[in-house]
């Protein structure tokens, strides 16, 4: 049993970590967030490409490194520590993974090299205002049109939807399959209502009005591929959140040690000390479950895998809520300002908690069948 990083993973962590440490301090990030049009850095995006991060899990024949979720998790945790603004989740964790899982060889060849090289930004549009996080209870439709399809409907909270060159969208076919369809960013009938999300990442609501599209693989097979990609994506968000939580804890610890009140560092106050200790416990529990989620991705038993990943995200969401709220409270007012980084971490982890499924839904999903602890 080896639960630590292997040498290759450690090297990857060091490489990404040192890049971000140099290029992604709180000020640089704030600058991007508040003063750049795009909301993120094309230049850093290119550096991620050069380091092979954008093609990390892409097959080598499409220019990727062909690595697994373990390596991707290492990168995500680093990204969580730095709180990067680039559309990595949208493009790599979702978009490219969907193309890889559902697309034909030709589609992969057409799209994945561009992702790997940093020239293509992707997004995945699935959530709808009336469907919360359901993948299947959706109103968007796809109908055959010539050799392709046209897609209609409205999608909300599309991460990276503002700048995506291509969008993968879920829609119901006349056969009631939930298919995945590929839409060009400049397609006729596609309109974007772009915004920053609550956590500063950019996104959009997308309106599809008879937009020409191609099916990503067979619509009848798409849902299974989609669910499998979301298992991985949930596990990756867990790792990102752990990175973010770790930073919140250590920022808080540093603050307690340096902030003076009543003539001493506030770390002397036992109630604050013990609450920092409780944050540490929450972090360790979250870290354990992020690891469990990553390991579960290797499980061939799909229901068991899915349950483990959902359980992990539930733990992560609960830990993040606790750590985020306490981090702000122990900082006091300063923690609520844009200039100080800790609040940005709260915002990102709060957004993660609302992505794919929230704690309430996860509780019900995990508890639906035989549950997590079994006699096996």
């Amino acid at each position, binding site marked *: 049993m080896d639960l630590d990083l292997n040498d290759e993973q450690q090297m990857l962590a060091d490489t990404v970590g040192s890049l971000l440490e140099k290029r992604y301090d709180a000020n640089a990030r704030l600058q991007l967030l508040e003063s750049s049009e795009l909301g993120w850095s094309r230049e850093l995006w290119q550096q991620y490409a050069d380091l092979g991060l954008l093609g990390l899990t892409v097959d080598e024949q499409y220019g990727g490194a062909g690595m697994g979720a373990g390596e991707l998790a290492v990168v995500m945790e680093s990204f969580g520590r730095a709180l990067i603004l680039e559309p990595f989740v949208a493009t790599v964790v979702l978009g490219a993974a969907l193309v890889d899982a559902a697309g034909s060889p030709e589609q992969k060849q057409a799209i994945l090299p561009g992702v790997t090289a940093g020239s293509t930004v992707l997004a995945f549009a699935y*959530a709808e*205002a009336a469907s*919360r*996080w359901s993948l299947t209870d959706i109103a968007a439709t796809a109908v055959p049109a010539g050799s392709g399809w046209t897609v209609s409907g*409205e999608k*909300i*909270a599309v991460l990276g939807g503002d700048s995506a060159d291509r969008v993968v969208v879920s829609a119901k076919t006349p056969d009631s399959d939930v298919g995945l369809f590929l839409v060009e960013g400049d397609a006729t009938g596609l*309109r974007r*209502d772009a*915004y*920053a*999300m*609550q956590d500063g990442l950019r*996104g959009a*609501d997308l*309106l599809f*009005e008879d937009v020409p599209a191609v099916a990503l693989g067979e619509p009848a097979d798409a849902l299974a591929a989609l669910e499998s990609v979301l298992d991985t994506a949930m596990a990756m968000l867990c790792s990102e959140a752990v990175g973010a939580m770790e930073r919140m804890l250590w920022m808080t610890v540093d603050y307690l040690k340096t*902030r*003076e*009140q*009543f003539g001493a560092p506030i770390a002397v*106050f036992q*109630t*604050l000390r013990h609450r920092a200790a409780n944050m540490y416990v929450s972090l360790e529990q979250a870290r354990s479950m992020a690891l469990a989620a990553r390991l579960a991705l290797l499980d061939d038993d799909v229901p068991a895998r899915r349950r483990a990943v959902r359980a992990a995200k539930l733990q992560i969401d609960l830990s993040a809520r606790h750590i985020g*709220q306490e981090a*702000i*409270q122990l900082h*006091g*007012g300063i*923690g*609520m*300002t*844009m*200039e100080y980084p800790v*609040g*940005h971490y*709260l*915002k990102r982890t*709060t*957004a993660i908690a*609302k*992505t794919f499924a*929230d*704690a*309430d839904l996860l*509780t*019900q999903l995990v508890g639906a069948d035989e549950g997590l602890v079994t006699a096996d």
Partner: protein
Amino acid sequence: MNTALSKEDRAFAEEMRAFFASEMPAEMRERLGRGGHPSRDDIVTTMRILDDHGLAAPHWPVEWGGKDWTPLQRHLFAEEMVMANVPSPLAFNTAMVGPVIATFGSQEQKERFLPATARCDIWWSQGFSEPNAGSDLASLKTTAVRDGDEYVVNGQKTWTTLGQFGDWIFCLVRTDSAAKKQRGISFLLIDMTSPGLTVRPIHLIDGGYEVNEVFLDNVRVPADQLVGEENQGWSYAKFLLGNERTANASIGLIKSRILRIKRLGGTALDDPLLRARLTRLEVEATALEMSVLRVLAREASLPPGVPDPTSSMLKLKGSELQQDASELLTDILGPAGLAYRETDEVPAGFDALPEGALDAMPTYFNWRKASIYAGSNEVQREIIAKTILKF
């Protein structure tokens, strides 16, 4: 909790409710009911209408426009105002500096400031907190040095709420640097257009600007703007902060948020876990409301202007419930709350946003402050602990 109110009190509440419904702009009330932030104009408009009806500051002395109401009536008045989605009068005016001037100010100060304060012709800001003070407020460093008929003020204030709109600011300043902490502090009224005074807004994580830094660089303040006696400012500040035992419970706000959640919760509230959270929130809020009424019922027998464990308890629980309510709303909205938007206008063809989409998550972030400001919850726990442990 109608069962606790007498028939007369209930009639009084009904009367107030009718007043707010008929006299306050419907557009404003509707907008704020949907989660909008009150603008400067909303607050000024409201205070003028209140003043026109002699209701600007019911808790002030009658000769300065107050009403001879019971504590419960004042509470019901404030609660009905919140429940009617009418913005509360600016606390810095009516709850803070007004009572201080009315109690400790000179006759000339009363005449000069109180009517304008009640009507919001002067928008007051509060200059208490400093960057290195925090919960240790008395360690403040801003100095005021007497120079002839003036004080020369130097220092920095922070967390000045709505200071960007301020006309005047009431400040705690150190007038005797040799004296220890609480001694040597004075209470000074400063015109914010004075040369040397600058305001810098602080951008908060909810995306908005509601607090400010205020820099005082050789600001000259006429000595007749000192309230009361020099070096007695700490006692006036304590009077001011201990003035309202029950307001920090925010019970009206909590109830109005609960009603809003029920109104817009829709099918999300069929979820048994969300429903259970709402129910427990309702129960705790009902308990808190009764706690408020219990305090009001024995208000007369309590020493005035002194922090007591009951008001600390109300602040603690009230801030928690406020935060719980804001969190529940984000959970009800789910992915629909993920976009940060300045307005609820969407491009043609797009669906209208569900109510709450705009404000739920920013409010959740913003209300983290509720357990930090006005004496952090840690400070409140310590006040309670000191009282019950006598130790």
